């Protein structure tokens, strides 16, 4: 049990709730962004080790003792990637919304029925 994991899962559920129930397309994208934040938080928390420090080697963390003193650097590197991809995906999705709004002058997703079956 860890408070960070709890916050991460709570953020994911909040985001999924927003994506499932909201009608405004911008709010759906915001829900997606909240889910992304939750996933990133959980990933970083997985790499955390109690009582250790950031994976940067300097006078406080000598090279020889690095393995015993730093937290896991791999999840941090992966989250760095995930954040950038998240920004790109969100920006592209918002662009689609801008185009859709220009066509129909509506942000309500129920009015876009062209692909609905």
């Amino acid at each position: 049990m860890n408070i960070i994991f709890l916050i991460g899962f709570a953020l994911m559920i909040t985001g999924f709730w927003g994506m499932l129930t909201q009608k405004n397309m911008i709010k759906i994208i915001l829900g997606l962004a909240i889910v992304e934040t939750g996933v990133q938080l959980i990933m970083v928390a997985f790499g955390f080790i109690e009582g250790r420090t950031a994976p940067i080697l300097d006078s406080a963390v000598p090279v020889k003792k690095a393995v015993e003193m730093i937290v896991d650097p791999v999840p941090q590197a992966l989250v760095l990637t995930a954040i950038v991809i998240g920004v790109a995906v969100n920006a592209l999705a918002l662009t689609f919304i801008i185009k859709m709004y220009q066509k129909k002058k509506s942000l309500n997703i129920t009015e876009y029925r062209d692909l609905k079956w």
Partner: protein
Amino acid sequence: MIKRLFSFVLLTGLGFVFYYALTNITASRELTGVSAEYAERGAAELGAANLVTAIVVTYRGLDTLGEVSVLFLAATGIAVLLRRKKGYVQARSEDKRGSSEILKTGTDFLVPIIVMFGVYIFMNGHLTPGGGFQGGAVVASAVMLQFLSNPSYRLNHTVFGFIESMSGFFYVSIGILGIVLAGGFLDNRILPLGNFGSILSAGAIPVIYTLIGLKVGTELAGILDNMRRDA
């Protein structure tokens, strides 16, 4: 109604999955596998004080190249979708009230400092927390400040496009130089590793991160400019 019930059931199920995961997580006590290997050998092999940077730029450099490509594709997609039609006239800036003297002076004062801070972040990516993506985002925020404070500000697309394509080109070129001169694609040891912990160390990592920083900064600035349109 049935929709609400469906989403409620779905979220409750998700909640159960998460609860199960939450109660079964065991905190790790030590580095294992590939992370331990990176922590042990990273400093000696690549000379980067920031191990996250060593992983992002060199050990998993190919991932980062893919990431830069995704960002580039997203920026291109946005530019294509939001391109201005032929004969489209931008709303003239003299129709709008100009920004006040305080705002103008404040912006002129802050923009160079913000850009310099962004450059500092991506040039020190191998020593301190930070790197190309973070620095690039800070540089783009300076452009954002210009957009917000000065409605008639126009981005010079020739210069920005040139910087963007050149930094992408040199990034891949350095990667290929790694195959020729060192161990493999995007190997940073094509330049001498230098003194551990100084700014000119870690081989090609500062160069690569500077290129990534320039590329990300100009790309994000381009996205902002495309999304602004009639502002």
